[in-house]
């Protein structure tokens, strides 16, 4: 049963990634693209979790953890760039 749940989850997240891609390419504003990229990071974390469950292995948590920790840095850096140009001032 969990297996089915995982497959369902995978399917959902695959679809989600596809939708993110659409927004990433469509824009229109650069903010939309950044948002899409940020959402991809979140969905990727979810996928990594599912892979962990599917493989009954805990050795992928670090990846998820790291993404949760530093994944947003890119996003804020992009925004800071748009706001200030100089991201470290």
């Amino acid at each position, binding site marked *: 049963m969990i297996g089915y749940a995982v497959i369902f989850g995978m399917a959902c997240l695959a679809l989600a990634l596809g939708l993110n891609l659409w927004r990433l390419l469509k824009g229109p504003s650069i903010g939309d693209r950044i948002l899409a*990229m940020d959402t991809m990071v979140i969905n990727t974390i979810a996928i990594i979790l599912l892979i962990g469950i599917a493989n009954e292995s805990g*050795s992928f948590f670090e990846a998820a953890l790291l993404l949760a920790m530093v994944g947003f*840095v890119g996003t804020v850096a*992009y925004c800071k760039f748009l*706001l200030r*140009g100089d*991201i470290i001032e």
Partner: protein
Amino acid sequence: MAIPLTLYTLVLLPFVAALLIAAIGGNARVLHSGIAAAGSAMGLALIVSAAGRVIGGEEFAVAIAWVPAIGLEFSLMIDPLGLMFAGLILGIGLLVVIFGHFYLAEGEATARFFASLMLFQGAMLGIVLAGNVLLLLIFWELTSLSSFLLIGFWRHKAEARQGARMALAVTGGGGLVLIAGMVLLGIVAGSFDLMTILASADVVQASPLYPVILILILIGCFTKSAQFPFHFWLPHAMAAPTPVSAYLHSATMVKAGVFLLARLWPVLSGTDLYTVIVTSVGLVTMTFGAFVALFRHDLKSILAYSTISQLGLLVMLLGFSIKMAAVAAVLHILNHAAFKAALFMTAGIVDHESGTRDIRRLGGLAKMMPITAIIATTAAAAMAGLPPLGGFISKEMMLYETLEISLFGLPWLVPVVATIAATLSVGYSLRLAWHLFFGSPREPEPYARAHDPGVGMWASPAVLVLLAVLLGLFPMLLAGTLVASVAGAVIGEPLPTLDLSLWHGVNWALGMSMMAVAGGVLLLWRHKDLLLATASLLRPDAKAMFQSLMAGADTLVRKFIVTTHTPSLQRMVFATFSVVVVVVIEGAITGGGILTGPREGLPASPVAIVAWLLLIIATAAVVNDERHRFRVLVYISVIGLIIALAFVQFSAPDLALTQISVEVVTILLLLLALNLLPKAPPLLSSSPRKWRDGAVACLGGLLVGGAAWAMLTREPNDPISSYHLANSYSGGGGTNVVNVTLVDFRAFDTLGEIIVLGIAGLAIFALLDTTSRGSAGARLRTWQQDVPHSPESHPIMFVMSTRILLPLVLSAGIYMFLRGHNQPGGGFIAALVVAIAFLLQYLASGFDWTDARRRIGEHTMIAFGVLVAMVTGLGALIFDANFLATAFDYFTLPLIGEFELATAVLFDVGVFCVVFGAVMLALAQLSHIAQRAARAHQAQLDEEKAEGSR
């Protein structure tokens, strides 16, 4: 003195003298010439001392091994031929040195002059005494070099520089051809020892390579001895000071070619090919040279062409491949050396004392400079071959031998042409003497100036002329034995009885030479008309031709080099990838085999397919939106994310971690750079170029992708990593095999890797430290933000969250580090995580705020890290283990429980420090210049605002 020692001393003396002179330097003229003279004199003495035994038939050879691998020995030998030439080189050398001492003006660079002269003398001696052809080649090239220096002695004169370069180009080039010929000869003969080669005529002449060898060697000789069509350099070498001409262009350098012909006579001569080529070249040169000489006006030019003609005569004689011809050649070598050197010196005297060398401005000088006149006239007579002088005998013999030769099946050809040439040479010889010393002076000024020089200057030519006279009067007594033995040496077997004398009774030869004399007189008489007649004749100026040839080559090559080599990165990269494409296709086709291997694949999940689509489309988007740099960055980070996901999917947690953290840092770096770079500059590439690049790109992608496919569908070939898996825990003390590989199995790689990163940090620092100066500084000061920006620099939410994040992320970093040896993580990843934690502070709270709170400088971090890693590695040596060997053990403490201590972890500390230091150094430095730029800009804005308000 023992002959072997004599030989070495002979060859080394001049070089030692040259060194001495150079060492003394300055303008101690007397000292310079003194040393040179002493050197030559000592050499001459040695030769004389050895002469008896050598002429007596003894042969002496000495050898020191040098480079056995190529059969090069420092071996010298002396036989009559060598003896004669050595005598000439040293004897005339001595006279030239004396002459030169008086000839050179005060304040001329006598050190350079005499040093080069001695260098040349040594090289010449080396040629004539070499017992190994490779050694001979070495000295051969040395003569080219030293003559280059001597001809260019008056470096301020353009014609001197050009003449020198021309001589070097022709003789040096000829020398290279000669190298080819000689090395081939040696290979065919099976040895580079001269004696062995001379003894192996049958082998050589039987070899299919013989024609090649012959032609190559002949080119070498002809260029050196100024044979047609390589003669043109010699007249322009007359830009040299007269002593140099007297030395190089009468007796020595130009005779080197003749010497080599004589030297190799036994092994090369005797074939039809040899006879035809050498004879005809000699014949043509002899005639052509004589003809031109008749119509030249510059004394030295006349002498130069006469030399060409006389050398042609010698070459022709050697070409006959007849014994007596060789004898004639040997005798004429002696004669020519004597009278030609004398003539050059007298020409120098005339030039020196009257101020001109133009024969059209001189005349009747006999009154003003009688001694010079006597010397010159006698020498000219010898050149003309008038009895009772030595020149007569040798020319007589020459003419006699011509009758023996039928060229191209025409028995009359050689005698007739030879007679014509003889006539011409009588003509120019008479003209030289007559127009110079007799008749009425053509111009008053030089005539008035002219007077005999001091004895120091005319002594040398006088001696030489005396020799020429005596050679005519007492040939047998003076030169009989010498000539006989030399000729014997040339031919390689003893001669039949030899009779040198002025009178051989009435024969063809006598008639021919009488015709020549008569014709010569006629030529002199009608010289004016002839001049007019030949004036219309076009005279191709060799110099102009040579120079336009060189200039043409220069422009051509330069055009090619410039168009192809003007640095163009696009061309470089394109070339590289094109080569790769070609190479891969070639390999695949030639190698054969199959594309798809037997290994069965893994099914792809929907997520995998979507991720794949994501990656491909994002890549396409990068290419498509290449101009919008910022947007492209977003796509890039998406690609990075997918790759991280792939690493997770394919059981590479460590790689996923690395990919994720490196990705973040890279993006920060690119953003920092992009801030100062154009955001969306117009694209450069034309559309055809895009198609071209696209084609290469697609090919490359196809090939590499194909290779990846081929690789992935094959079974692994029992990789060494099975050992790593088996020994990671037991031998490396860690369960994370990747980490154990990094810090233990292949720690040496990691050492290099962190050093690469450290260097990158240092290099970036060095690169950016200068940015605020120079044109970059100026550009930064006038730097304009291309888009308006928000005034808020530190958004409160961002700032505050990063403050709680810092300790949290740091603890995560510590965690990643500590468990790295057993679980995914490790020093590198930990370093990046910690670096990001601090970079967040830079991002949120700004550079100054964060920088003020930093504790350790990055340089120190890098240095410390490398040292820790190195010391950890070296620690093993104490325990008799190899560099980077590790140790680990498990300990148990009360309450704490069991834990592991591994030296590999210490190594990982080094990794951590270097990586952290390098990353922080790079980004801090980069953000710093951005900040400086922004500040400079801000300052300017404020200024303007202040202006506006006022």
